[in-house]
C-alpha cells in the first residue's frame, strides 16, 4: 500500500503560509512586523518537515517520481524562505543616508505646505494654533512614503 508522504506536503504548505503571511497578515501588528519572528518560526517548522519528507522520499524503496516531487517541494520552500529573508534583512534596509536630518536640540526647519483643502499651512501655525482650546504642547511631524 502506498502511504502519503505527509511531511513533505505539510512542509510545503507551511512554507507557503510562512512566506505569504508576513506581507498579508503579520505586518499588520507592530510586534510581528518590526521583527518577522513569527514567520521565521513557521519557516523553521516547515524546514524540519521538508527535511523529514525528503529523507523519507530518498529511501531505497521509493520511486523516482516521489524523489523528484519532494525535491521540488523542498526547493520551493527554500526559495520562499530566501525571499522572506531577503525582504526582511536586505530590501527593508534600502534607505538613503539622512545625515542632514535635523537632530534633537536643533531648531526644526520651517515650511509652508498645503493641507487637504489646498490652504497653505506653516510650521509656526501648527505650533501655535490651539487644540482642544489650549495651545499645543508639541507637534509630531510624521513623514511617510505615501501612495503616489
Amino acid at each position, binding site marked *: 500500500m502506498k502511504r502519503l508522504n505527509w511531511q513533505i506536503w505539510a512542509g510545503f504548505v507551511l512554507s507557503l503560509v510562512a512566506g505569504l503571511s508576513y506581507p498579508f497578515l503579520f505586518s499588520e501588528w507592530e510586534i510581528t512586523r518590526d521583527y518577522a519572528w513569527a514567520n521565521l518560526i513557521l519557516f523553521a517548522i516547515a524546514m524540519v518537515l521538508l527535511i523529514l519528507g525528503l529523507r523519507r522520499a530518498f529511501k531505497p524503496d521509493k520511486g523516482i517520481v516521489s524523489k523528484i516531487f519532494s525535491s521540488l517541494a523542498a526547493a520551493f520552500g527554500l526559495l520562499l524562505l530566501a525571499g522572506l529573508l531577503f525582504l526582511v534583512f536586505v*530590501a527593508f534596509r534600502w*534607505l538613503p543616508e539622512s545625515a542632514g536630518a535635523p537632530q534633537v*536640540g536643533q531648531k526644526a526647519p520651517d515650511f509652508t505646505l*498645503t493641507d487637504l483643502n489646498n490652504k497653505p499651512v506653516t510650521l509656526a501655525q501648527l505650533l501655535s494654533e490651539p487644540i482642544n482650546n489650549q495651545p499645543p504642547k*508639541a507637534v509630531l511631524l510624521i513623514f511617510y512614503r505615501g*501612495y503616489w
Partner: protein
Amino acid sequence: MKALSDAGIRVVAISVDKPEKTRVKMVQEAGYTFTFLSDPKLEAIRRYDLVHAEELASGRDIARPAEFLIDPDGSIRWRMVTENFSVRARAEHVLEAAKALP
C-alpha cells in the same frame, strides 16, 4: 492617536501625495483624523533631508519614513529616523518623550 491629542500633541503627517489622494487613502479608507500636508515638490522633505530619490517601488522621489517631536519654541525634542521600513515610531515612544516637555 487619541492619546497623543489628549496629551496636547498635534499630529501632522507629510507625504508627496496630492490632497485628493490623501483624502481617499488616509481619511476615507484608513479613517485617520490628524492633519495632512501635501509636499509634492519635496520642499519640506528636502529641508529635513528625508528624500528617498527614485525609490524602487514607485520610481519617484518620495519621503523616507521619519518622525520628529517639536516643542512650541520650534526645537526638536525627539526624533526617529528609521533605518528599516518595517520599524516605525510607536505612540508610546512619543508619549514617553513628551513627558519631558514643560
